[in-house]
């Protein structure tokens, strides 16, 4: 637990990122509500973004990802938004057809 006493560094970023990632996964896996799952996905993406930011920062490491990391983070944010928009639309469509957004009810297709 020594890293709790260290100044903020890469490992902290990574830890938070990993935490977010795991949270997101758990969220995706446990939520029955489609919106909840979408939130989980956002969390996963944010975990990754945090990693990129951490890796890109020149303050933590001499050799770093640099601008690329930041750029990727920015792009991912935008993409996440786009993806969320489409996913929400699809969820809405699902609701229109099934009158629910409980993903457990989406079980017509199987086999």
């Amino acid at each position, binding site marked *: 637990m020594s890293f709790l006493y260290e100044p903020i560094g890469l490992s902290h970023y*990574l830890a938070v*990122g990993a935490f977010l990632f795991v949270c997101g996964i758990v969220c995706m896996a446990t939520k029955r509500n489609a919106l909840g799952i979408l939130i989980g996905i956002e969390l996963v993406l944010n975990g990754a973004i945090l990693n990129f930011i951490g890796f890109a920062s020149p303050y933590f490491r001499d050799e770093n990802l640099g601008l690329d990391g930041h750029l*990727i983070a920015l792009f991912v944010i935008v993409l996440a938004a786009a993806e969320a928009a489409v996913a929400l639309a699809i969820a809405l469509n699902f609701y229109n057809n099934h009158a629910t957004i409980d993903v457990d009810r989406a079980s017509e297709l199987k086999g």
Partner: protein
Amino acid sequence: MLFTLVNHLTTDTLASLVGLGAELVLCATIVLILLARMFQLTQRIDSTWLAMIGTLLALMVLSPLTPWDVTRSPVEMVSIGELPQVELFTGMLVHDGFGVMVKTLLLVFLLLLFSLIKLTKAHGKADSPDFTTLLLGATIGMFLMISTNHVLIVFLAIEMASVPSYAMVAIRRGDRKGSEAALKYAVYGAGAAGVMLYGISLLCGLLNSAHLPTMAMRLSELTSAGLSGSQTVLLVMAALMILAGLAFKLSAVPFHQWCPDVFEGATAEVGAFLSVASKAAAVALLVRVALGLGDSVDPSLLATVRSFLAMLIGVVAMVTCTFGNLAAFAQTNMKRLLAYSTIAHAGYLMMAVPPMLALVGVDNAAASQCAGYLGLYLAVYLLMNLGAFAVVAFLRDTMGSEEIRDYAGMIHRSPSVAICLSILLVSLIGLPPLAGFVGKFAVFGGIAQGYLATGDTLLAVMLLVGCLNTAVSLFYYLRVVKVMTMDPIDDEAAPMLVGPGILQRSYLWCVTLPVLLLIIGWNWLNVWIQAATSGLFS
């Protein structure tokens, strides 16, 4: 300095735009369609026509035959094939023969798909602006996948290809199955993308670069210095996570679950697109990533990495292929069966990659040839699968059913359809003299070549597994053929009052005849593809 930078960027961008011509044309087409829609033009002109024109234009801009000239002899071709591998946009993308070849195949496929859409009823005029936009958009994403040279583009392209696909699956309003499939697809895709992105972040962090060749260089430096334990774990973990994302696109086992559900829920036209275009792009991406990571200045440095990747891809390919073939046995829905068949074919496609990895450094020319074999398989697979899905679409239109049971006695109801589908399915098995055999022959030939050159046991196993899978797949493809040709018409079968029209049947023959007759002269295709890929490893 800023000026130099800007100047540099401008020249680079301008030069790069040339290599991006096809994508730009497609973008322009999208814009055009959207504009046309804004001005209510689409009610008068079906936007599918616009999309087809756009695709044609893109094909012309891509000009796959120049500087290739198939009329020349193979010896000369080699020199022509050396289209210099150009990095575009400061190394974000790469433009080379391999990319052009796969893109050409995609565009040809797109043309055929648009014609199919015109002939079927699922995506009518009202939907067509949305639908064509989505299709073209996804295609641009796939183009980026094909020519990616940077992890950002990897992610971006996958998302660009996926997101419109989600929407396409759900495009029919009021379709319960479609909406469910779309939801599953979207969630699964997004999840996979998330995992992949996380893997990418780890890898980039470790190698401190996002540019694939640079990453490879760093990796070779790292490996030559000796990897620490945690680094190895991180690398493997990252590789697996990235693979998860790619495997999702390829519908490789164990990331395949979405595939049958989505194919069943989506229309056959979308199924065709997903099963061909998306697989083609994904396998091209796999080649890029795997080789980008595996290729370095000194081939011996990354031998372990390559053999690890070959092992990983090879095992996944074998499992995918076997699983797909086995799981298809029990299917009753044609689209679902084709979905599993797609999974199996994804396995065959992936099988072409390990010999490539094994041959790099041993015999680069042979490795390039293997990439060509993959292209050949893709080219053939494109026709066969499109044809099969087209039949499903036509029959859905005429009798409203996609159950295999209802195809009974098809030979009497609509002989053309039955014969065409039979030919296509048998071709999917890979039996001579149909085109499917050419693809299989090439891919297995690549594996055999790799095996004999390297003596890698994995490749021998793969060859055997691949060949035996061919025999296994016989069962379910032939079951459909049997139902159509030998089973009597069931009273409970869905009625078909009017068979597919003359146009539809002509379309089927147009797709089937090349499948039937390709064996007579596939040299030009092989030469063209080999020339295109000859520069992949130099």
